[in-house]
């Protein structure tokens, strides 16, 4: 893993988001809301408890409602504007109402003030001079002044201000924390995929042990229908395995002894014994999770800007508040000064500004991971939206990496059927991408006799080819490179020699088939374009980006369908040439899309490096963005999603910034009552939170979309099922049924 994804310092114990301050050996929370929400969550987990924290909030709201009603009565009788007209009775009524307000306010102060004091004290001890402390000061001032006013028969009381500020502050922060928790829901759903305990096989006896205790070399048993808990090698049995969660590949794969399996993939139909190759903390799924979590911690450009503002904001706000108190105190007396100062503190609380970027980025990173797109950090997410030049690697990126047979040239056309049958039979016994192509080759016109003799004594010649004895009149048959033919001393007929000569000039990939001592046929292969490649490139161009293809070889014919949509194609580039090409092509923000194998330098050099199919091997590449699968449509999805995210961040920032500025001006002028300031503060933060959570409703790409009937938003109660259905591809149900049907 690159240094950019180094382990972050600490996470909030409630919402799982990164926290700045590190305090050892005690619960860590990123804010007062999370501290409060964690207390609520702990109590609701334990049904025996009285859920005191939440009851406390409820009671405080109840008392505050009472205070408000009595305050309304106080106001509506306007006893303090013209008390003399109403006489002594009005004074007595006013004092009675004020005392009732005091009696009802005191419990609110105790109920909600206490946890806030606790939090502010905790912060102060760790050297954090937070907004909560300032607000406490404001509340205390309002309450103290009211008591003073009550005792000295002063003109105004502000019990309702103290109550409402506390209630709105606590409620707002708690709802905020709940929103934050939702941004990391997708990740937690992924975490829960792995079982807590596994079946360890030791001396042929099965033990149930904790997943964390597994060591490389241990053997575990994974039954059909279970998720494979760890990376390892299969030692016994075979099974169909659904690896979409790690590789993004929606086809099932069939694995047997000595095949590698990845943590998180689903064992569909075999009881596998697996030898552990990596400790649980380094398993594929865990690294995937770590990468997403780490990406949330890396502060992006937007985040740094917001942090900078926030750093300036607090001292600025305190100065404005002090100034407000001073000016109003000099001109209008103590009470308007107090109210205006408190309003400034409340409205200027930079909560919304501080939340604007991280909330959107956190929500977006989780959603993207669910779609199989991993961003290394928030910056990559933002940069992708601005890319105006996309460079594609050819082999393995625009093409599938699995060639197909383009044509066959025969030495003697009369032998067509026999030769093709021999090739098919020989190709069937070994697995190489070229033999796979021959296996899949359906000749036109079809063969009169579709199956041929069976080979025995198959010998693999690494790097050269394969040979086998078919016995009888046929004898030894060889399939392989031209060098293989020459090393074995098999003669090449004149007609084929010409063809081979032309081919070597073109660097076309080919395979020769020989039997009876001479070469009988030459198979020519070509790469095939990914089915979605042309559509994806067209989409990029429609969106106004330029597209270029950087190819290592010069067989560009395969790109014909893409070239038709005016794409620059540069061939015969060495890996370092690709890197140079990026700057030569000159885009403002350049993205390189590759498979991360031979284009790593270019991926690292581009403004945005995008690697395909890196689910099983996240640490391998230097890419900013990893597409778990090989699907270029995910790239298009990622671009659209990053644009939506940047849009959300911008709106969040614009909203938070203008709200703070206008609010502070109003409050400093004394036109904003503290109760409304508190309400506006909470509403503003909640708006930023809910606006960011909208990103979780962004539709997933069709190939990652959940099965029919399942809602694709993550606010379903069962996050795990959601994650699963989102990660399971289309048609997965049918495949599963087919696999099950095969068993029964």
């Amino acid at each position, binding site marked *: 893993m690159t240094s950019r994804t180094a382990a972050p310092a600490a996470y909030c114990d409630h919402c799982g988001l990164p926290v700045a301050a590190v305090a050892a050996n005690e619960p860590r929370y990123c804010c007062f809301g999370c501290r409060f929400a964690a207390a*609520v969550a702990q109590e609701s987990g334990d049904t025996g408890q*009285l*859920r005191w924290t939440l*009851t406390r909030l*409820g009671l405080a709201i109840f008392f505050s*409602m009472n205070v408000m009603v009595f305050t*309304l*009565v106080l106001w*509506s009788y306007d006893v303090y504007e013209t008390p003399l007209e109403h006489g002594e009775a009005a004074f007595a009524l006013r004092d009675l109402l004020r005392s009732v307000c005091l009696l009802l306010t005191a419990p609110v102060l105790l109920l909600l003030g206490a946890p806030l004091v606790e939090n502010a004290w905790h912060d102060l001890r760790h050297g954090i001079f937070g907004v909560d402390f300032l607000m406490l000061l404001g509340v205390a001032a309002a309450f103290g002044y009211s008591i003073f006013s009550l005792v000295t028969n002063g003109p105004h009381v502000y019990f309702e201000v103290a109550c409402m500020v506390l209630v709105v502050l606590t409620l707002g922060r708690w709802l905020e924390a709940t929103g934050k928790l939702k941004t990391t829901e997708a990740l937690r759903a992924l975490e829960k995929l792995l079982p807590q305990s596994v079946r360890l096989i030791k001396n042929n006896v099965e033990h149930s042990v904790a997943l964390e205790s597994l060591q490389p070399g241990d053997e575990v048993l994974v039954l059909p229908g279970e998720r494979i808990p760890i990376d390892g090698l299969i030692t016994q049995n075979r099974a169909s395995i659904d690896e979409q969660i790690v590789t993004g590949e929606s086809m099932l794969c069939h694995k047997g002894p000595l095949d590698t399996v990845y943590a998180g993939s689903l064992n569909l139909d075999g009881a596998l014994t697996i030898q552990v190759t990596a400790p649980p903390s380094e398993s594929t799924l865990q690294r995937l999770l770590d990468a997403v979590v780490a990406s949330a911690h890396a502060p992006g450009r937007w985040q740094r800007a917001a942090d900078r503002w926030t750093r300036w904001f607090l001292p600025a706000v305190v100065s404005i508040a002090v100034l407000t108190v001073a000016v109003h105190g000099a001109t209008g007396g103590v009470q308007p000064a107090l109210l205006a100062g408190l309003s400034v503190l409340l409205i200027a609380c930079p909560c919304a500004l501080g939340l604007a970027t991280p909330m959107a980025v956190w929500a977006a990173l989780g959603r993207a991971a669910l779609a199989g797109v991993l961003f290394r950090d928030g910056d990559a997410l933002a940069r992708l939206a601005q890319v105006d030049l996309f460079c594609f690697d050819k082999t393995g990126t625009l093409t599938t990496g699995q060639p197909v047979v383009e044509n066959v040239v025969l030495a003697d056309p009369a032998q067509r059927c026999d030769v093709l049958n021999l090739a098919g039979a020989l190709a069937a016994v070994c697995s190489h991408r070229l033999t796979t192509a021959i296996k899949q080759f359906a000749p036109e016109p079809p063969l009169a006799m579709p199956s041929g003799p069976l080979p025995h004594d198959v010998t693999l010649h690494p790097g050269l080819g394969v040979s086998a004895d078919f016995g009888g009149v046929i004898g030894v048959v060889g399939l392989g490179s031209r060098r293989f033919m020459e090393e074995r001393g098999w003669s090449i007929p004149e007609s084929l020699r010409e063809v081979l000569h032309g081919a070597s000039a073109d660097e076309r990939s080919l395979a020769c088939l020989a039997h009876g001592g001479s070469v009988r046929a030459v198979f020519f292969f070509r790469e095939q374009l990914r089915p979605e490649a042309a559509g994806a490139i067209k989409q990029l161009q429609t969106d106004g980006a330029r597209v270029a293809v950087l190819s290592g070889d010069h067989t560009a014919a395969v790109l014909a369908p893409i070239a038709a949509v005016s794409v620059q194609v540069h061939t015969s580039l060495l890996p370092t040439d690709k890197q140079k090409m990026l700057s030569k092509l000159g885009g403002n923000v350049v993205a390189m899309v590759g498979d991360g194998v031979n284009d790593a330098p270019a991926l690292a050099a581009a403004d945005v490096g995008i690697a395909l199919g890196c689910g099983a091997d996240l640490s391998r590449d230097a890419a900013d963005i990893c597409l778990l699968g090989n699907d270029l449509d995910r790239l298009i999805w990622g671009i659209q999603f990053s644009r939506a995210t940047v849009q959300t961040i911008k709106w969040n920032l614009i909203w938070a910034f203008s709200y703070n500025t206008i609010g502070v001006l109003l409050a400093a002028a004394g036109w904003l009552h503290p109760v409304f300031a508190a309400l506006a503060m909470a509403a503003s933060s909640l708006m930023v939170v809910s606006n960011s959570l909208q990103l979780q409703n962004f539709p997933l790409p069709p190939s990652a979309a959940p099965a029919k009937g399942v809602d694709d938003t993550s606010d379903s109660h069962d996050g795990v099922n959601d994650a699963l259905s989102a990660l399971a591809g289309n048609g997965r149900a049918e495949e599963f049924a087919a696999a099950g049907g095969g068993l029964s």
Partner: protein
Amino acid sequence: MMELLLVFMAGFLGSSHCVGMCGGFALSIGGASPSLWRNTQRQLFYTAGRVFTYSVLGAFMGFGGWRLSREFPALVNAPAVLALIAGVLLVYQGLATANVRPRRSRSDGRTPCLAGSFLANFLTAPGFGNVFLAGVFTGLLPCGLLYAMLALAGGTGDVFAGMAVMAVFGLGTAPLMLLAGCGGSLLTLRRRQHMLKIAAWCVVLTGVVSLARGVSFLQLSASAAPACLFCN
């Protein structure tokens, strides 16, 4: 007095509508209770919480109405306008319930996530205090009938009168909610449907009375307006 009686009837008969919305809450409150008496107690506390919230909201609206009519006596006849708004809302709500006007289809039925998790904590908690609080917060849930009544409370232009309207309305909703919470299905489906129909027309009637009141207020202020011109 006549008006409060109508409000009570609107609450009482309109509460079959409430049972649809809040009946689920009432049921979940009673769910864990060992006995009918215990359940009834819990329901009473729950209802008391709701009535409390309605009264507070009524006080706010009454105050708001009073302030409006005081601040802009010549520009807007606040009680008249509020009474008219209430009337329109009530008639609309009543007609919608009576199926005369097509009902808006229930939107996807997804619970409001944050409020939902908040309420659930109180609904299932032991102790009467929590049930009371559940009532307090349920009273804040959005409801068309409630808004119409609040507009009516605002039209009174007085803190206490507004409180009274809403308290009476809340008390009116109590009987059926208690029944729904305790007895579950003491009423047959047919009877409930009948009830719903009558309730709907009762709500319409309250709306018409409110409209008439608003119109008479407007006429009053129209005749009073020239007098003001002479005064100044």
